[in-house]
């Protein structure tokens, strides 16, 4: 690029007041309609969660985790709980394991449906925004029936879960899933055969799996390249029930560019994720046994933990989330808790992914990676 062109460059802030930029701001350098430099900025949403955790008891800690990403609250709290369970040596009862897994997958569906709406709005198609958001309400109803809260439900606790399934709550959940299944063909048609979706997303923001892993991308963003990287199947977590289910990791294999993914692939991938989650819940619901929902020793054991280190991980909706926890002997709160939010890396990768593309495609690339500011600002 000759220096004369850069003389005409314009610096443009995308956010923090832009409607699509809910808690982030990116400085773009434009030449004409093309982006030559992208500088993502973080920190607009910072609530110092890691420092806060050092002053909260182990039971309170999961509530802070939940608020990092309200859309996947059931999943976000799990890495912390898992780390506490490992250090305290708690055994999660079978009933709690399965219930936990069911609610996590239900939460994943609702989170992906929210993403659908948001992404369509970013593409400028507002009809498609409202459809999944209507269906999502059924899942929120199920959460409300079970826990009394629609978003941050505080469902998990060290050693199990807090609220037991009732006949009615299972019924509401089943209704939500049945409704979701009835809507699937409509969405599939909309995604795969809608020309406006295709034009806006095909060939945009393309990377291969090796590059994606170097940037630290995970979850659907990597699975869209055809690599079945999924903690649910790769790592056998004894406190979850994924090993009881017969299912395959959803991956999307693109015919045009194998081993790579563009915005269209990632969009289809997120549709496949919903299908897989529905499959898991359908298989797990009849398996819920009778029994306690929390380890009877949890109350005594999770009050003060022995000294130790643990690393809890979960395959979240947006990628791999984890918590590294260190405790000192008989302390009531962690010595250090580090949170890995999957979106820190997806937001960072814009720096490499965006330059060279048109300004109008910027929000498409951003939306297709599904970043959520709470995860990177923490």
């Amino acid at each position, binding site marked *: 690029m000759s220096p004369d062109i850069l003389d005409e460059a314009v610096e443009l802030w995308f956010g923090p007041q832009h409607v699509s930029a809910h808690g982030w701001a990116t400085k773009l350098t434009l030449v004409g309609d093309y982006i030559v430099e992208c500088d993502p900025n973080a920190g607009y949403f910072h609530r110092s969660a890691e420092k806060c955790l050092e002053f909260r008891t182990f039971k309170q800690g999961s509530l802070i985790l939940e608020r990092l990403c309200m859309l996947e609250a059931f999943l976000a709290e799990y890495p912390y709980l898992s780390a506490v369970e490992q250090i305290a040596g708690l055994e999660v009862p079978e009933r709690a394991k399965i219930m936990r897994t069911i609610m996590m997958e239900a939460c994943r569906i609702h989170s992906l449906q929210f993403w659908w709406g948001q992404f369509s709005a970013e593409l400028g198609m507002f009809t498609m925004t409202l459809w999944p958001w209507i269906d999502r309400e059924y899942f929120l109803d199920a959460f409300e029936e079970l826990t009394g809260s629609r978003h941050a439900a505080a469902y998990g606790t060290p050693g199990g879960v807090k609220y037991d399934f009732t006949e009615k709550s299972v019924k509401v959940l089943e209704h939500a899933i049945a409704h979701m299944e009835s809507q699937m063909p409509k969405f599939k048609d909309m995604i795969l055969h809608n020309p406006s979706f295709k034009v806006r997303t095909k060939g945009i923001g393309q990377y291969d799996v090796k590059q994606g892993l170097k940037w630290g991308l995970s979850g659907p963003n990597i699975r869209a390249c055809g690599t079945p990287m999924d903690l649910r199947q790769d790592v056998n977590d004894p406190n979850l029930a994924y090993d009881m289910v017969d299912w395959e990791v959803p991956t999307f294999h693109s015919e045009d560019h194998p081993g790579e993914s563009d915005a269209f692939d990632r969009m289809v991938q997120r549709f496949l994720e919903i299908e897989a989650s529905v499959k898991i819940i359908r298989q797990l619901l009849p398996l819920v046994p009778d029994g306690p929902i929390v380890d009877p020793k949890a109350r005594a054991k999770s009050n003060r933990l022995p000294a130790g280190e643990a690393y809890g991980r979960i395959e979240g909706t947006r990628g791999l989330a984890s918590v590294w926890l260190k405790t000192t002997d008989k302390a009531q709160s962690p010595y250090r808790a580090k949170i*890995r939010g999957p979106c*820190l890396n997806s937001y960072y990768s814009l720096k490499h992914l965006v330059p060279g593309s048109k300004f109008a495609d910027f929000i498409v690339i951003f939306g297709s990676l599904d970043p959520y500011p709470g995860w990177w600002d923490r």
Partner: protein
Amino acid sequence: MSGTAFARMIVNKYQEVEPKLLTDEKVDLVIPASLIRDVVHLIEESYPLIFPEIIMGLDLEDDKYEVIYIFWSRETNFLCQFRVLLEGATPVVDTISDIFPGMEWHERETCEMFGIDFKGHPDLRLLLLPDELEGKYPLRKRFKTDRSRLSESGLPQPKPRPPRGGDSQ
């Protein structure tokens, strides 16, 4: 190559590396600060599809710090944890953000939260903290978060509590 085989290779190659935990699922190695780039290069060559998870700081008090690196290899399914021990008021370690670009922001965050300098890092501006924050390195243990720092924050002082039984006036 399994996790234990990889860890043995590192320990045999670099005498200064001290193994803390060696199992097939998890490997934990203490690595001198001067060797971290070599070891990370080695893991990148041995596992082309390795996934970098975390770089984090840890304050062990009395000017001792640990930087912890976590990698995950999906093919052989093992977690690889490296620890680098640092001492002194201004700890320094080499950056690995040119080998794994995704770790650039993890290092940037560790730098602003713990005051650990990453030599060779392209961009060590503040990431999450506001520019006007007074007092440094919030995640160090000596950083106070009680009322004594309230005047720096610019927040109004809390009103003194009324005496018991309510105000007489």
